[in-house]
């Protein structure tokens, strides 16, 4: 397995290439573009046997994704911010048709004011549309999770689309060391794509029918059950990957850092977790019993795992890189709802919107806030 120094976007593309998607509809938007540019190079140099469709909008990118997957092939696309917002209409159509499409979202703030920089408002705003959302912290995790995500989504007990969420710029444009698996290893892990259903004149079926009130809810209930089933599949696929490739990320749903005897902990997603690790280490050196919970799977949400991970805590501080305007951080809402029967104190900080740096100082202040009986708020 070669270890290289690589930009996360290119690493993502290398991960995608190993999964052999056949159709890649794409539309450019910063900071996602390096991913599809790398894929375009691979296709045009004959290293990847796939068709790139240079669609005229993200709406069409998402629609072509649906068409190609429905015709019976593995697909990939990538987007960010306004691009994901433009795809929004098609997201529930892909999940409702149970098409296991995989898409990378290089997370970026939503306009206005326009900002090309990172926060989580794009993907978090789309979390209720029936896509599995796995959030990654590092380049290596981006490669590994891409490979896992295809296997998770295509599992016939799941059959849901998946978003691989990586922080725009703070991850997508960062160069790190990473191990790129060999093709044979990935082939042994991820089998050839076998569609559960497809558009085939030999066996005509109708996809995307109209459902009247007497059947619509059953469709949604089945999707929800598949999402809950995905909790198990994410774990199993992660464990299988860990065994075969020797790299693990917690249990696949949550990754716990120095939580053994922790009294207070931080929780968040994406690259801010990397900074938080340093903060936890420093506070530990000072004798503070603190830890860190990284959320990998925002949907499905690992409620049971979170209850277990937090049962000995006195306080949990949730960092949201997005705000549900008029209420609070959406991750905080999820966490508080999951833990409402426990007596842990929980608070919330909004941080890093529109690319604002999240510094060690910020996270130290946040992590000690409950111990020092301070309220949550904005890390400006």
């Amino acid at each position, binding site marked *: 397995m070669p270890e290289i120094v690589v930009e996360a976007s290119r690493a993502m593309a290398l991960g995608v290439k190993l999964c052999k998607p*056949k*159709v890649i*509809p794409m539309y450019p938007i910063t900071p996602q573009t390096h991913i599809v540019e790398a894929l375009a190079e691979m296709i045009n140099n004959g290293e990847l*046997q*796939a*068709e790139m*469709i*240079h*669609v*005229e*909008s993200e*709406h*069409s*990118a998402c*629609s*072509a*994704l*649906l*068409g*190609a*997957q*429905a*015709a*019976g*092939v593995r*697909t990939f696309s990538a987007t960010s911010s306004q691009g994901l917002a433009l795809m929004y*209409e*098609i997201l529930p*159509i892909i999940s409702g*048709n149970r098409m296991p499409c995989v898409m990378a979202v290089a997370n970026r703030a939503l306009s206005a004011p326009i900002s090309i920089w990172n926060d989580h408002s794009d993907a978090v705003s789309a979390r209720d549309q029936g896509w599995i959302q796995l959030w990654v912290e590092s380049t290596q995790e981006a490669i590994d999770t891409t490979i896992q995500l295809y296997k998770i989504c295509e599992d016939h007990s799941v059959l849901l689309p998946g978003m691989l969420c990586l922080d725009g710029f703070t991850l997508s444009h960062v160069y790190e060391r990473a191990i790129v698996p060999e093709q044979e290893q990935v082939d042994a892990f991820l089998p050839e794509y076998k569609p559960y259903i497809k*558009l*085939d*004149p030999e*066996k*005509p*079926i*109708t*996809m*995307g*029918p*109209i*459902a*009247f009130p007497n*059947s619509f809810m059953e469709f949604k209930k089945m999707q929800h059950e598949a999402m809950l089933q995905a909790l198990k599949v994410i774990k199993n696929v992660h464990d299988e990957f860990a065994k075969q490739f020797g790299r693990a990320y917690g249990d696949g749903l949550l990754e716990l850092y120095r939580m053994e005897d922790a009294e207070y902990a931080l929780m968040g997603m994406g690259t801010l977790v990397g900074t938080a690790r340093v903060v936890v280490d420093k506070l530990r050196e000072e004798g503070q019993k603190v830890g860190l919970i990284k959320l990998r799977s925002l949907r499905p949400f690992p409620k049971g795992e979170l209850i277990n991970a937090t049962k000995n805590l006195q306080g949990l501080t949730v960092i949201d890189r997005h705000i549900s305007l008029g209420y609070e951080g959406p991750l905080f809402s999820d966490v508080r709802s999951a833990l409402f029967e426990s007596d842990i104190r929980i608070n919330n900080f909004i941080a890093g919107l529109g690319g604002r740096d999240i510094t060690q100082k910020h996270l130290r202040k946040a992590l000690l806030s409950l111990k020092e009986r301070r309220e949550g708020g904005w890390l400006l």
Partner: protein
Amino acid sequence: MIRGLPEEEFFASGHRACAGCGAAIAMRHITKAAGRNTIVVQATGCMEVVSTPYPETAWRLPYIHGAFENTAAIASGIERALKTLGKKYNILVLGGDGATFDIGFGALSGAIERGHNFLYVCNDNGAYMNTGIQRSGATPKYAHTTTSPAGRVIPGKLEWKKPLPFIIASHRAPYVATASISEIPDLYSKIKKGLEIEGPCYVQVFSPCVPGWGIDSAKSVEVARLAVETRICPLYEIEGGILKITKDIKEPKPVEEYLKAQARFKHLSETQIKEIQAFVDGEWTRIKELEEKKCRFY
């Protein structure tokens, strides 16, 4: 059953369209022309709603409905996927005039520019009928719709119809044609041609909507025929950028005959009818000139 057409039906009876629905007549014969080796992509609209009430379907062909404005993009994905699988099927893309002229125009334009191999068929009844007869870019001037009502101050729609076949032809589409449900053999052969010719082809089918136009359900074919005979709906094809009229109307009936047959035009004044007649005459002259001078769309 029209003599000479295949007996096999791919758009099954029992669908929920209105009696006399022009679009249902179009679907039936378009799918006959396409045949078994076809994948259908359909936009949201009446035809999708009446033909796919879960768990029933009128489609005896593989069929996908995604959304309103994205059929051309879905078809693009299907076409490229089939290419990687080494399979070749007809890809038949169906949308109404709202889906085609308005909301899906960007996706259609992009797909034609990219040169995907499919046939896009627009069922043109000149309004958003599924949502209750609202004005579209294909609505004819002065027509009453529920969003361009014939009021005391504003007499229906104020603009002419978008010249979509010419716009598509200018994209270098290899084959563009207009057809009518009153001329089934002509429609049938144009669909066949559009599927045979490599690349993105476009056929626009003129088809009356019984409630939308305010006509008797027994008269939809008759009214469609009047549109052809009055030159309201000129029938032509543009192959390789060259236009050819496929049904010459040497002695046209006055447009008044067509307009008077429909409730959506019942408020029209003499002056407005004259204005429409002058416009139709002008358009016919222009199309004739394009044909005679062998003007190239590209």
